[in-house]
């Protein structure tokens, strides 16, 4: 546990340089194993993710999604809450925003009203979905790991459900699996034919606000204390239970906001809305050392890989599934390098001296 204190420091712990080097090496080995030429593959990767304005648009849109879900994970892991439900909260946000945009708001809603309302609806739905798990933990002692996992699966089926039936959110004019199109005043149009949209700019204030909140406010101190040692935090008069509930709400709201934004950028709800990004966000948050400011470059790095891998598959014949392998290995490598999550140290010490504190 000697290096466990690294986590408590407020300085940025972005493992960028090592990470990039490791990724390049790893990718080269895998590409070689696939029987492709590493140089050709890297060229395709860079061309596909950063070689044109269209590529950049796609990369930055992916980055925004990963950034919001990554912040959601970072803030809850910091507080010692293993909320692995970003995937479900993201979907809940997307569904709620789509319902509001296509069922409630009038066709001619002005953008100044439609955009913030939809984002707000997404954040609220994500927070609500997450607080279900929070409430189960607080009043029934249900582990958030199981509850958020179950809620993820329910949300994904719910998404498939609402886009399958016209009486719910499906667009009757299309084949199954697509929601009705949003009114113009509620959609985030891509700029100049690319996937880049105004919502991407929201990542900057989000990252900054989260950093301020976590490291420069009393609430953030309570949050970190609750994660590092809930027993001590409680003894210091911090309302640990309430802090945890707020963290559930905050992280759910962040993921839900990302979901609403992704849906608004797509212009409608679809069955395949950034699938598995909620799980990738765990890699993003860990690579950022759970630091809000570092989440942004970390998200960009993974977004580059993600969009680039599709191009790599097309032109260098390297399967795009490679990205999952790389993400998983990154997490394992970071865990092995002695990155300790606040919760694990607490669990260990609490089990040793108090017989366990849930």
């Amino acid at each position, binding site marked *: 546990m000697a290096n466990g204190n690294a986590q408590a420091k407020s300085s940025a712990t972005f493992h960028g340089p090592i990470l990039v080097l490791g990724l390049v090496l790893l990718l080269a080995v895998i590409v070689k194993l696939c029987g492709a030429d590493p140089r050709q593959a890297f060229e395709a990767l860079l061309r596909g993710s950063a070689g044109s304005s269209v590529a950049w648009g796609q990369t930055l849109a992916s980055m925004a999604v990963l950034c919001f879900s990554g912040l959601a994970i970072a803030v809850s892991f910091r507080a010692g809450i293993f909320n692995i439900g970003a995937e479900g909260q993201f979907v809940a946000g997307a569904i709620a925003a789509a319902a509001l945009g296509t069922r409630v708001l009038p066709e001619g809603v002005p953008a100044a009203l439609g955009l913030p309302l939809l984002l707000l609806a997404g954040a609220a739905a994500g927070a609500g979905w997450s607080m279900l798990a929070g409430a189960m933990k607080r009043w029934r002692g249900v582990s958030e790991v199981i509850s958020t996992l179950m809620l993820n699966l329910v949300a994904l089926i719910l998404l498939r459900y609402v886009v399958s039936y016209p009486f719910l959110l499906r667009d009757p004019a299309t084949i199954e699996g697509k929601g009705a199109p949003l009114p113009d005043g509620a959609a985030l149009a891509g700029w100049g034919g690319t996937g880049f949209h105004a919502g991407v700019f929201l990542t900057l204030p989000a990252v900054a606000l989260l950093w301020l909140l976590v490291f420069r406010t009393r609430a953030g101190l309570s949050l970190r204390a609750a994660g590092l040692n809930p027993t001590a935090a409680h003894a210091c008069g911090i309302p640990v239970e309430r802090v945890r509930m707020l963290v559930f709400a905050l992280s759910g709201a962040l993921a839900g906001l990302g979901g609403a934004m992704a849906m608004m950028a797509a212009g409608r709800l679809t069955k395949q809305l950034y699938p598995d990004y909620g799980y990738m966000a765990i890699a993003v948050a860990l690579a950022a050392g759970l630091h809000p400011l570092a989440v942004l470059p970390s998200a960009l790095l993974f977004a580059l890989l993600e969009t680039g891998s599709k191009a790599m598959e097309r032109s260098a014949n390297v399967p795009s599934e490679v990205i999952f392998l790389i993400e998983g290995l990154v997490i394992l490598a970071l*865990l092995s390098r002695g990155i300790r999550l606040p919760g694990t140290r607490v669990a260990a010490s609490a089990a040793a001296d108090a*017989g366990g504190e849930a």
Partner: protein
Amino acid sequence: MDDVLLFLAATLRIGSPVLLAAMGEAVLERSGVLNIGIEGVMLAGAFAGFVTAWSTGSPLLGAGASMLAGALVAAVLAFMVLRVKADQIVSGMALNLVAMGLTGSAYRALENHVRAGGGSTDLRAPTFAPILFEQTALTWFAFLSVPAIWFYLERSERGLELRAVGEHPGAAQASGVDVAACRFKAALAAGAFAGLGGAFLTISQTASFSSHCTNGRGFVALAAVVLGRYSAWGTAAACVFFGAAFAARDRFQASGLNVHPEILEMLPYLLTLFALVFALRRRTGAPAALGKPF
């Protein structure tokens, strides 16, 4: 009457892969380790089982390979959890990603060979009675493993040690039980079971592989263990119930009845949540040291 039997047969068939994975997971969780990576373990088993059965023409070899692959993936988790002392949940999620990427890209590389042709990949037990008992050998194995695991957990000395490790590793260690070794062995066994469960999908059921072929069944197994309160019989009952829910969905769909299949699909997860919140309260039967590093 035939309809009922067909439904029961489908229940058992659909329930078996989940049951296999859940029985292993129940043992592992009783030793205090939560394997969120079970989905990845199943996927690895599904892949290894399919490729081996397809290339050798022997489903038996396929089943063996799937158990090896499952145990190997679980060994990585055990290493992370027991040696590195990394967080169990995050390690498990990482393993899911690794397995998804590894099997997905390996299958892409093999895909063209596989499409060219395949051997027989059917693993059937002798038929004793029509329909209900016309199940594959793996289904038989899955259901026969339930009493065996019950006996191991509740009636054997080794099982007692394992439960002690899950409830209070410190006390177990002090009384001379090697906690890490016990958990490592449990992880290997659980990995073999989950791998075999994965192979059931690719060998017995579909004779094909796809990168999402486990489709959340590992998570269903996790739910079954929770709903079954970590006991062998309870977990098996939960698996049969989940099998019935999925079988009912398929039958409703086939019969064109106006029941939305999505509702039935959600049922296992919703029921698990409801049970945790309302029925079990704090008497969940979860081992005291579950998920905690030692």
